[in-house]
């Protein structure tokens, strides 16, 4: 059995010095974490560069990308409800038309809100 | 060990793994002999379903803490009458792995005391990890009425 010494019993009280330190949490939304580049958020499409090869659609693990008609060629339409944000589509795009931004605030009232067609993908909304 | 089982055991070694291919009937004796030599840690039992050849291949993975050596023990059983002697008397940790294989593939382990469902609940149908069970078709019919959304 361990010997109870007063010193060991009072040791956890050293934690009181944490009261004078700044807390680890941030008051959201006034103080938010700064966005990091290379973050895997929502996709962004540049329709001029897209050649309609369909590579993003074939590589997606969840079948979230379908090719639809837009501006006389095929462009991707992404269903963000099925997307797992793994960025395989952006990495395998041969022209660099599709890339990931650091937008993470995607919410709506209806499931159809989550389907981002080529026009919606090419708009950068404010942070 | 090769002296005892010379004709009926095939010994395959390549750069990474060592494999022993055994007949169904001899598997238990070989396993006891391996435990005596020093393979005291039973890692896993895997089942691979070869649909065209109508066989299940059972693969036992063993590790020896003393000699830092790994071994694969393979045996084949027919698909229509899938039964195999349980290795639980030799390695106690095989108990739960065999129970999972029974549930997922439908293999009967003779001598196992508790072959009840482990992970799935209220499952009626063929054992799900077999190759003739198409899980995508099952999900589409049961939850989406046959159409992709």
């Amino acid at each position: 059995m361990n010997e109870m010494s007063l010193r060991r019993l009072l040791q956890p009280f050293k934690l009181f010095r944490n009261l004078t330190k700044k807390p680890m949490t941030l008051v959201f939304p006034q103080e938010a974490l700064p966005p990091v580049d290379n973050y895997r958020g929502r996709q962004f499409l540049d329709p001029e560069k897209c050649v309609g090869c369909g590579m993003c659609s074939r590589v997606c693990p969840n079948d979230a990308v379908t090719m639809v008609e837009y501006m006389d060629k095929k462009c991707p339409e992404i269903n963000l409800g099925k997307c797992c944000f793994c960025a395989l589509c952006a990495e395998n795009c041969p022209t660099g038309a599709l890339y990931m931004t650091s937008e993470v605030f995607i919410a709506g009232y209806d499931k159809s809100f989550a389907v981002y067609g080529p026009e919606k993908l090419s708009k950068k909304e404010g942070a | 060990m090769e002296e005892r089982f010379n004709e009926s055991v095939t010994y395959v070694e390549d750069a990474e793994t060592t494999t022993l291919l055994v007949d169904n009937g001899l598997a238990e004796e070989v396993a006891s002999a391996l435990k005596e030599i020093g393979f005291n840690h039973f890692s896993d039992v895997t089942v691979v379903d070869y649909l065209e050849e109508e066989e299940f291949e059972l693969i036992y993975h063993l590790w020896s803490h003393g000699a830092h050596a790994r071994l694969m023990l393979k045996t084949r059983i027919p698909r229509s009458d899938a039964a195999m002697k349980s290795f639980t008397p030799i390695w106690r940790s095989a108990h739960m792995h065999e129970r999972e294989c029974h549930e997922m593939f439908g293999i009967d382990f003779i001598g196992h005391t508790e072959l009840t469902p482990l992970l799935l609940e209220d499952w009626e149908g063929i054992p799900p990890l077999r190759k003739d069970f198409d899980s995508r078709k099952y999900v589409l019919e049961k939850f989406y009425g046959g159409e992709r959304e």
Partner: protein
Amino acid sequence: MTTDIPFFTIPFGPCHPSSGHFHASVTVDGERVVNLVPDPGYLHRGFEKLMEYRTYLQNSPLVDRICILDPFAAELGYVNAAEKVLEIEAPERGKFIRTIMAEFGRILSHITWIGVTCMVVGLDSGCKIAWGDREPIIRINEKVTGGRIYPCYFLPGGVRRDLPEGFTGMVEEALSGLEKNLEQYDFLVFNNETFRVRMEDIGFLDAEDAIRLGATGPNLRAAGVEADLRKDQPYEVYDQLEFNVVTQDKGDAFARDMCRRLEIEESMNIIRDAIHKLPEGDYKNKAFKPFSKAKKKETYFCCESARGEQCYHMVGDGTDKPYRVKVRGPSFSHTLDEFPYLAKKAYIADIPAIYWSLDPCPADVDR
């Protein structure tokens, strides 16, 4: 003492804050546990069947989700097994980066474990401090891989992107902050009188029983057996790095706790050593294409995760999808074999302490 009162069965249930997502039926006689029957299956997602429908590249974001507490180890095992079946090699720089991130994953998992154990035993301050300590490592994760919790970073043939600039500075800052905080854990948790009274002298698992029941990882090393896959069967670049294997003698719950606490320090040494020896060069092998075909081979690869031995059995059949993948989580034997064995001689109040000293991950059991 036998009376007419029958034994009472209570659920150590899936909605209990100290059991994770794992259910066990506990039969008690007064305060003593008579029998414990584990009942996994609440997190069964069918990974083995899912992996048969996707190519080798599409499986790599999927494998993270097997055990979220230590995703780098699950990815490392998958990637090495896939490399053997596809017959491609990763370059040196890629292997060093993978080793560094795997050790960060181990530190993250151990800090999470300290937090949850403190919460379960009743020491809530430990939980909040531990969750704050995870933050610098998660920010490194974010900068390097692009995601805070799910990395999706390893690939058969290397890693997906190179390390960012300023990586070495970030790592030094995070590690020195962590070293200062480890003293806090020492006087709050590991030298705390109440914590020790709750954890010492319960849940004895000696070496023979541990090997018989299939224990691996810190649970086995706390019983005195020096078994670590990073030294016994080195993979990646562990044979070029210097570190010690931590063992303890006693085999009770507190010995397992101390084993993990000392492993955090060893991991920090490994990271510093690896950064020192990091070579230049390619970070991935360009021979791996999205639809590369495998050879007709099968392989079995084991790596050492924070909890024990994580193994992948992969069968390739000449197409671009694997024929069969079997994942063996380290917590399979721990929760289903060792936990019932240790709980049989304990009081009800000791059950959460024993359960979390084995460091289970219910997602590993069910996959």
